[in-house]
């Protein structure tokens, strides 16, 4: 099929060129087609800038773009084998899956000056079947005007966002709905440990506005100052900052990166052109294009930060104080499970999460230093955010739940499991609520008994 396909493409060209030489006054000297076919889901601004830069660096070379959402890339590749040279897109899971299937050749690129990690956060494939091309950083988009109006402090770490003062002043994206968001769960679960991370996720999720919006609206909300903080990826926000919106982006110490990658297919029809394209996007020249105001992404070649625009974040510099090592493989494996668990703990039980956290806060205030009451509240706090499964159980279940853009292969069994978890969480929170209410009542009764 490959040969037939190539024949269909090339033969008419050769035939036409022969005719052309004989007949057309507009004919130019025929040249061998020199092109690279690139599959991507990058927006036009990224595509155009790199296409232009590449064609300038390699005169006579042309780029043909096949645009495909990452979730739909596999179908195209299966239907059109031997058609694509380079895969270049922000979708770590798709790269991992294609690499596992043996689709890529080891990246034929000089990797000198291109580290595989940012601090403790891996960004490239250890076997170099695909390499990071750019990264986007997770953190807090902060509307400084709203902070002033609401007299709120500038948040610096995840723990800050768990405080009650951020109620309805922040947006945390829902990982199962926003494709960029799943790594957030693992950043907290690995950065703070499974239990503490999930407790933080629930407290932050409880402060987040009720989950009826989607990620795009979050960017809009922060730009418009409807909320003070949106947990997001930096590049979603940078163009608004660039255009003068009163927004800062804060990178907490426990952070992570969403890498986009480049890879060359084993059956690339234009292997030399593919190599040149991959080399170009990772070159100093290509990497510096990422500073362009239409792109605003973070280069993966540390040396180019010497030429960064004023105020541009340097993740390699920041990573010197990154306090943890991120296990990427585990994050990938648990993505579907994390999404499902987040929905059970936060998205679908948002009201009871808020109710129990609010009542706990009142009870804590009422209990003061009373050690007996605080012992009860310790129990209530644990119940309020207790997960229905341990980390070991989560690891055992990883891969069973569908990640973003994947199809659930066990819908009935998973639905039953999720129902069970939901009921357990609801029971725990009811119990926590009752304890907290008892503590409040006990303190009121004590007040009443005072002469």
């Amino acid at each position, binding site marked *: 099929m490959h040969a037939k*396909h190539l024949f*269909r*493409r090339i033969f*008419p*060209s050769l035939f*036409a*060129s022969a*005719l*052309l030489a*004989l*007949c*057309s006054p*507009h*004919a*130019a000297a*025929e*040249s061998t*087609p020199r092109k690279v076919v690139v599959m991507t*889901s*990058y*927006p*036009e*601004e990224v*595509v*155009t800038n790199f*296409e232009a830069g590449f*064609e300038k660096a390699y*005169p*006579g070379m*042309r780029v043909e*773009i*096949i*645009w*495909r*959402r990452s979730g*739909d890339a596999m*179908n*195209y590749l299966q*239907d*059109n084998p031997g*058609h694509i040279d380079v895969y270049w897109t*922000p*979708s770590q899971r798709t790269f991992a899956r294609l690499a596992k299937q043996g689709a890529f050749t080891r990246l034929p690129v000089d990797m000198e000056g291109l580290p595989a990690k940012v601090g403790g956060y891996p960004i490239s494939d250890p076997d170099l079947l695909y390499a990071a091309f750019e990264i986007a950083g997770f953190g807090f988009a902060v509307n400084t005007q709203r902070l002033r109006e609401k007299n709120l402090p500038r948040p610096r770490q995840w723990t800050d966002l768990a405080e009650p003062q951020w109620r309805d002043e922040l947006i945390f994206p829902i990982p199962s709905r*926003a*494709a960029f968001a799943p790594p957030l769960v693992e950043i907290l679960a690995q950065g703070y440990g499974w239990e503490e991370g999930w407790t933080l996720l629930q407290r932050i999720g409880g402060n987040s506005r009720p989950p009826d919006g989607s*990620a*795009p609206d979050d*960017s*809009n909300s922060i*730009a*418009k100052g409807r909320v003070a903080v949106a947990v997001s990826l930096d*590049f*979603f926000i940078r*163009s*608004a900052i660039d*255009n*003068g*919106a009163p927004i800062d982006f804060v990178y907490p110490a426990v952070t992570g990166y969403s890498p986009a990658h480049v890879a060359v297919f084993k059956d690339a029809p234009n292997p030399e052109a593919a190599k040149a394209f991959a080399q170009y996007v990772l070159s100093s020249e290509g990497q510096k294009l990422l500073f362009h*105001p*239409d792109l605003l992404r973070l280069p993966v070649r540390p040396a180019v930060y010497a030429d960064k625009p004023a105020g541009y974040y340097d993740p390699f510099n920041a990573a010197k104080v990154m306090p943890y090592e991120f296990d990427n493989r585990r994050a990938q494996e648990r993505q579907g499970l994390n999404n499902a668990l987040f929905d059970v703990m936060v998205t679908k039980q948002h009201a009871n999460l808020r109710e129990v956290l609010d009542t706990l806060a009142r009870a804590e205030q009422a209990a003061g230093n009373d050690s007996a009451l605080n012992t009860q509240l310790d129990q209530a706090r644990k119940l309020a955010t207790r997960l229905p499964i341990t980390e070991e159980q989560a690891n055992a279940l990883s891969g069973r739940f569908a990640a973003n853009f994947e199809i659930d292969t066990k819908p009935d069994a998973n639905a039953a499991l999720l129902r069970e978890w939901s009921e357990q969480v609801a029971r725990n929170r009811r119990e926590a609520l009752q304890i907290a209410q008892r503590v409040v009542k006990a303190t009121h009764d004590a007040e009443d008994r005072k002469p």
Partner: protein
Amino acid sequence: MACLLAAAIPFYPGTAGSADTDALSAGASTVFDETRDAYSLASPAMPAGDRSAFVLGRTMFRQSWVIAPANDSAAGLGPLYNRISCIACHARNGKGHAPDDENGSMRAMLLRLSIPGADRHGGPNPHPAYGDQLNEHGVPGVPGEGIGYLLYEERMETFADGTPLRLRKPSVRFKELAYGALGEDIMVSPRIGPAVYGLGLLEAVPDETLLALQQQAKPDGIRGRVNIVWDSINKKEAIGRFGMKANVATLTEQVANAFNGDLGITTPATPQENCTAVQTDCKKAPSGRASELEHTELSQQDLSATVFYHRTLAVPARRDMDDQQVLRGAQLFRQAHCASCHIPELRTGKEAPLPFLSDQLIRPYTDLLLHDMGEELADGRPDYRATGREWRTPPLWGIGLAKKVSPDAGYLHDGRARTLLEAVMWHGGEASVSREAVRKMSSDDRAALIRYLESI
């Protein structure tokens, strides 16, 4: 993630300022914004309830289209196409550009094709194998039509004070033609993507205004006439006002033609794939469908939203109007009779496709009429009543921000002019007198004239 990015661009409605009303380029649809977003803001007069239509239209305009079959609502690119999205040729809603040399791709321009004669409505006669536009790319199994590229011939223009100005004139060449020779009689017209803001207001200028302008006496051999074209939406002859030869009557048709011709996307207004009779692989290639209920790749709702987006994109206000150099430039602009065709002011009609676009005093600097621009700018390709030497006066509003919005932006129909001064010095035909007036200007006056254009 790309779709998230597209949708994540904040919706900034334009804000109307309270500055001098002379600065209002587009009446109530003027925005006071000098940033790279200057061409991307909604009219401040647009009711809040219309926001979702604007946002949907913007999404369509930014959409990267996908080859069918695909598990994607944006499936249907091709079978033959130039680029995969509208914004590829209209970066940030601004102007496209020409490649710098023979190695450069036509990333923001296209080649119109035709052969002598006319179609049944008097429009250009498409090439039997290649149609009316060269599509470089094809979906798998469908050969792209070939590659067009530009060669430049440079020449030196000299001002009266001896200052030289280097000009470049493009000529089109082809290679890798997949459907046979183009033939000796092929007519080719290279066009860069035009800016797309303020179009709703141009649409709202009454026909009567254009007919009156046509009748108006003008100095120095300047004439100007309307093009009469076939309105394929309303199935009747009409005055053309869109396209570089005023060759399209309505904004809907302009948008639908671009979807179909540039991207290969079928629309309710252009329901056929862009294959010619001899392109058999093209005709056999799979098409997409906007939904199970629709037979075209773009739905009526999405087409309407894209048209709405174009109708409501605001125009940036004028800037630096009190600057002495700008004031001097304005005087020179009038003295050189530039304003005879680049008419500063028009008024939209009492009836307009959208109520807030009606009865607006606008400053587009165009008469929307065809003018003979001389042999040097001629493409030799007639389009309805427009001859190969005639071009519609392009609007100048917002042109001073063109390079800020998109540093690559080119000027004139084929992007040959890299600066405004080069564009001025290419003017010929009816505009020869204006060009010669500029040639005689001192360097200070030339600078003032350009400064004025940059303030528009």
